């Protein structure tokens, strides 16, 4: 028989992701634990029209009535309901006297979650940024009329760069600051309350051969949600840089990643890990405190990674790009959870964190101890890391596992039960797999002995 290797995907927890592609489609992908955790496309919004190619997207993860903003190639910005895809309203980003939308594409879009605008939930605020650097922040009153008519409440337009092209922009967690960067534009940070530039980076010095690499930022992000001072940026010369605006204008740390341009950078919730994707489909996680590679995400990904999204609660990231697959990864084991083929070149992916199934609840509860354990582990790591070097951390962790297991065995004394435990823990971590294997071998050996005797 031909030996056909199938990619074993363990399936992912219940989640809901939205992808945007070059044909202007929005696809909703849902995975449910009750159905084996295999994600599938449940809905498709929009019609097939390449002129409506999605350039940027943003979601505000509100509990009630989450909204989704989508910038199209035609210069229109649509705001939809993230639940059923109803278009609430559309606004045009192109102004009459300005350049045409084809020449001045939207590169950055942010839909404010709106803590400060909580009182009037019918307003939503949008920050858009175009290639030429025309940035505008407008708050829009949504009227109740079904036609989707919207009135621009207040609009604020400024330019973030004199020359060059903006390629990336990002708004921080508190939604007070935004960073911009691009080809020929150094990273700069703006205060959104009064539209002033508060910081700009300085290009790194020439190298030992007196060669100056031209500025070309392709992706950027804030390192943590509640700290706007640390910025991670990826460059076209395959470099990842960490800037600290409270320290200096030049990068604090910078390191190279592979050979092609960095195309996307996303931060983790823990405040020091970043996920980096590049033009030839390599995805890796880095510890920004040390600049060390934590590990690569391997899974036959061969197309440029355009976007990475971190799930707000679950330990899952999603990546998508030119190979038209949406891939979901476990961040602890760096294993591919599953991949969905979506037929088009994907430009963006976002997670909808408010997705939860009623029928799924019990199984989620079953998973909870696992998660809790992970979280516990995480905290342990954090505690230990201050004192211990990296290598010993792992060993100590493994030791803990071993101790735990031993305790379990002693308690139950029943091999079947311990086996089940093995199964349930498989997900938890692969790092200690080695030790696990040893153990299972041992147990089996003992089994055999018993057989022989009998």
């Amino acid at each position: 028989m031909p030996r056909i290797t199938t990619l074993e995907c363990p399936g992912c927890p219940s989640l809901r992701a939205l992808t945007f592609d070059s044909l202007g489609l929005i696809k909703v992908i849902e995975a449910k634990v009750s159905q084996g955790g295999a994600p599938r496309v449940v809905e498709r919004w929009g019609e097939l029209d390449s002129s409506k190619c999605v350039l940027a997207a943003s979601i505000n993860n509100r509990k009630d009535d989450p909204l989704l903003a989508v910038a199209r190639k035609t210069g229109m910005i649509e705001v939809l309901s993230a639940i059923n895809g109803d278009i609430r309203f559309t606004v045009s980003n192109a102004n009459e006297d300005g350049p045409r939308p084809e020449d001045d594409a939207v590169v950055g879009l942010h839909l404010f979650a709106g803590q400060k605008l909580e009182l009037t939930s019918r307003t939503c605020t949008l920050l858009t940024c175009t290639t030429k650097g025309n940035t505008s922040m407008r708050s829009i009153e949504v009227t109740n009329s079904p036609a989707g008519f919207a009135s621009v409440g207040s609009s604020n337009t400024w330019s973030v760069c004199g020359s060059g092209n903006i390629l990336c922009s990002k708004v921080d967690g508190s939604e007070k600051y935004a960073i911009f960067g691009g080809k020929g534009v150094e990273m700069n940070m703006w205060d959104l309350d009064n539209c002033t530039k508060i910081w700009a980076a300085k290009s790194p010095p020439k190298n030992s051969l007196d060669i100056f690499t031209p500025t070309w930022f392709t992706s950027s992000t804030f390192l943590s949600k509640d700290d706007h001072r640390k910025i991670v940026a990826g460059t076209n010369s395959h470099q990842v840089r960490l800037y600290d605006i409270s320290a200096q204008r030049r990068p604090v740390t910078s390191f190279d990643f592979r050979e092609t341009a960095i195309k996307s950078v996303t931060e983790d919730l823990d405040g020091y890990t970043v996920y980096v994707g590049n033009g030839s489909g390599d995805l890796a996680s880095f510890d920004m405190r040390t600049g060390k590679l934590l590990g690569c995400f391997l899974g036959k990904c061969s197309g440029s990674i355009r976007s990475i999204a971190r799930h707000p609660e679950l330990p899952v990231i999603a990546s998508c790009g030119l190979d038209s697959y949406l891939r979901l990864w476990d961040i602890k084991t760096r294993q591919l959870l599953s991949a969905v083929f979506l037929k088009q070149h994907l430009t963006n992916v976002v997670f909808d964190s408010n997705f939860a199934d009623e029928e799924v609840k019990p199984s989620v509860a079953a998973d909870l101890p696992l998660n809790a354990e992970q979280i516990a582990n995480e905290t342990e790591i954090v505690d230990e890391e201050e004192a211990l070097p990296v290598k010993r951390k792992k060993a100590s962790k493994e030791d803990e596992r071993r101790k735990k297991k031993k305790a379990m065995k002693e308690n139950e004394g029943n091999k079947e039960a311990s086996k089940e435990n093995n199964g349930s823990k498989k997900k938890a971590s692969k790092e200690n797999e080695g030790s696990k294997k040893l153990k299972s071998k041992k147990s089996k050996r003992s089994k055999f002995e018993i057989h022989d005797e009998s």
Partner: protein
Amino acid sequence: MGYKRKKSESELEPEIENDRKKPMTQKEEKEILPSTIKNKEKRSEVHAKLKHQKKLEKRKKAKARDAAEKRALELGEEPPPKMVPRTIENTREFDETVCKPDDEELFAGNDADEFGAILKRDRTPKVLITTCRFNSSRGPAFISELLSVIPNAHYYKRGTYDLKKIVEYANNKDFTSLIVVHTNRREPDALLIIGLPEGPTAHFKLSKLVLRKDIKNHGNPTNHKPELVLNNFTTRLGHRIGRLIQSLFPQDPNFRGRRVVTFHNQRDFIFFRHHRYIFDRKESKQTDSKGKEAKDAKGEKASQERVIARLQECGPRFTLKLTSLQHGTFDSKGGEFEWVHKPEMDTSRRRFFL
């Protein structure tokens, strides 16, 4: 399950099977796998014996099958169904990217892609062919043959220009594609096909090049626009490559020219062939001379004639293998790849990408 257990089972099983099949043969030899024998002479002896036995069995089986077929024919029954050999292609790993004919997204995507204008005949293909910096011997010969294969192709000397500059130049001159023939040690070994003005860029490895003069009984192509045959481009990536190749050739072939260019994909290798064909009438002589004479007497000779197509190869002949497909025009530093061949993809012989 446990590793120990498995091993012991796998050791046990063949013994049991062999015992069941041939209880007549010597047991001592059967129990030992030839690979476990350390003495080479002995090992090869046992191995040869095993092989011989297998061959005999196979022959026996074939004979039995033939006999069954013959008997079925004589009795006028349905002959037993023919076995389909298992090949690497028909046991290919399942690939969800294989295009289905009822996929509306595929067609919408095709309409929107970079080749749409050429394939809808809004633009006529115009191809610029150039080489790498150093070029001699087989390179120019290959290019002169490529020029005869691809209509409306123009050769430009490379000089010392950057490829990006050449792309710019070709864009200004309204070319639709750019082909770069890369030569290594005076032997063409790579082909770069760039769609203009906005990509994509496909990088192929070129091998097994046979020029026209080295093909026996070759023909000389005419100036007619050739017909194009693209075989087996099944997946999404395959479709894209197929369309890229298609955009090199004019979409209105002169059928009078009876000239055909074939790109045949098999196991991710793209075989290029260039033929002239002719429709010929052939009298089937065998049926005339041998059996069914009664029928022959009645039927006219014209009815025995069949129309066949005869081929004459015009050359060149070469094989391409895709190494990468880049989004946009050539950009070695900041380029985004749609597909790159990576070593980790080669974990199965039955996985194909085109």
